[in-house]
């Protein structure tokens, strides 16, 4: 396929994904509001365990005792990761459910191109949702403010985080071709991220989670983003962390591509593409 035809397919897939997404408009409202609601149990847990909105032990580990701000930032940034997992990683399984998987496989387009279209659509939708969440959060009294000086480096970090992560999600989409029923696996992966990266708690609290977290790009991104937004540290080693994320991106993209291609080839050879 020539580049123009490829671009056309990507655009068509984006339009299709967004159209399906907006067939259920309530989903957009749900994603804007509920991830913010999910952090309230942690506020209540904090109040029950320490009796105030600030924790000295938390401050020792993270530099800030404001545990709510810590969690809210984790919730917003992790949105990108989780929507990628569901929207890209699970997307081919959804095509199976819709009965359109065989058409995609039989079309003269490589499934990877279709996945790129889905990825771009998912990224656009998630960005809109996170902007809505940021607007809601900045109105709440949790000590989080967004200024241009903070938002620009944060955007850079989010882009670097997501490039690598979409590589991982594409590999995961290949995995769905192989094992079919991945709904539960996506949930588990989601919680593995909750456990091994500092989305909801400082991973230093346990030596195992602390060790594993270093291998996850989300950890690096969250540490830097919290440093910028919460601690006003503009020189938190942004370039160093950007370099680490870039290296991880390269590794994940290459690994994601080859994993997907290998798994897709294996599924075709086994003749199990149409199986449910």
């Amino acid at each position, binding site marked *: 396929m020539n580049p123009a035809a490829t671009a056309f397919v990507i655009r068509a897939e984006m339009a299709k994904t967004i159209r399906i997404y907006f067939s*259920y408009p*309530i*989903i957009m409202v*749900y994603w804007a509001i*509920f991830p913010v*609601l*999910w952090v*309230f*149990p*942690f506020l*209540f*847990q*904090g*109040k*029950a*365990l*320490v*009796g105030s909105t600030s*924790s*000295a*032990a*938390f401050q*020792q*580990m993270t530099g800030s005792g404001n*545990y709510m701000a810590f969690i809210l930032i984790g919730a917003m940034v992790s949105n990108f990761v989780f929507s990628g997992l569901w929207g890209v990683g699970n997307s081919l399984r959804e095509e199976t*459910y819709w009965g359109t998987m065989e058409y995609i496989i039989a079309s003269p387009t490589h499934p990877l191109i279709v996945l790129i279209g889905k990825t771009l659509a998912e990224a656009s939708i998630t960005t809109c949702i996170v902007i809505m969440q940021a607007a809601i959060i900045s109105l709440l009294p949790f000590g989080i403010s967004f200024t241009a000086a903070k938002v620009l480096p944060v955007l850079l970090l989010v882009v670097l985080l997501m490039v690598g992560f979409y590589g991982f999600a594409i590999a995961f989409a290949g995995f769905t071709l192989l*094992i*079919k*029923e991945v709904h*539960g*696996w996506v*949930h*588990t992966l989601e*919680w*593995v991220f*909750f*456990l091994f990266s500092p*989305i*909801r*708690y*400082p*991973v230093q*609290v*346990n030596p195992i*989670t602390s060790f594993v977290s270093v291998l996850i790009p989300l950890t690096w991104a969250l540490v830097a983003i919290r440093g910028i937004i919460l601690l006003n540290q503009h020189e938190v080693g942004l370039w160093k962390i950007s370099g680490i994320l870039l290296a991880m991106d390269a590794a994940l993209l290459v690994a994601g591509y080859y994993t997907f291609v290998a798994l897709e080839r294996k599924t075709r050879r086994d003749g199990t593409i149409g199986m449910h």
Partner: protein
Amino acid sequence: MKRGIKGSRDQAIESGPSGTLSLYPSIPGSLLGRLRHYANAVWAENIKEWKLELTYPLDFLRSLVDPVVYLLPYVFYGIALVGGRFSPNLQKLVGTTDIVSFITIGYVFIGFMNMALWAMGFSLRKEQMYGTLEPVFAAPVPRWVFTMGMSMHSILHQFLMILTQLLFILAVFSLKVNPLGLLPALAMIGVMLIALYGIGMIMASTTLIFKQGWLISEAMGSLLMLVTPIAYPLAVLPVFMQKAALAVPTTYGILAARHFLMGEQMGFSVGTAFLRVAVLCVIWVVCGLVIFAAIDRSTRKSGTLSHY
């Protein structure tokens, strides 16, 4: 399904007169026979779900590990906040300091909530995705029997998951509980499950209208998670949430289980807790059956059952 039920609104084909050909030759007319017939259907649905689940053995194993992975962030978050395992503030609020035991016992109940919200709530949508919703609806048993079969499978699955979770926590954190409290705690869970069945029926019916049932389950799950005292006592919630929590069966399940197992002060007596859950059972089950029947009828009248 081998047999139908005479006189049931749901049956499409009744037994014929003696000596004539009938699809369901021996239909139980007595209450006992009818109950046995329903029990058979519940069991068949339960077995079907297990067969489907065990078709993906890796996924089944994963589901047993999940509860541990889900629980740990809550426990670690608590430890990070307090700087250790014991919280003096929790002691002031409920009379117990051990946050690991407190959170673990509370968290077990999320599994039961998931039964109502996901296993039952999402059950009809799953059948729709499999393309088997219409055959299920044409089966000669009421729909509540079908959802009960789903919940039976889910309850058995939840107990397996809870067992894994407790074994892990016992091995790693040495859970401190009173073993004598186990039986009364299980009794409370049993009553609570009946009330949750009612909520599950409501969730299942919403799928018939909204189709994308996961959204309703997620939204409802998020709200229930907020008001249910899983990792915190009721006292830290705003007053309106405390009142809302009293209408949720899992609130009593958690409070009573923690009371029996680790001496948490509930703020009301054990008898009151059982009485309130019994009342909630009646309210939720009646509401669940009535709402489900009304939505089921309206969906069939409007012809939108097979809409996607």
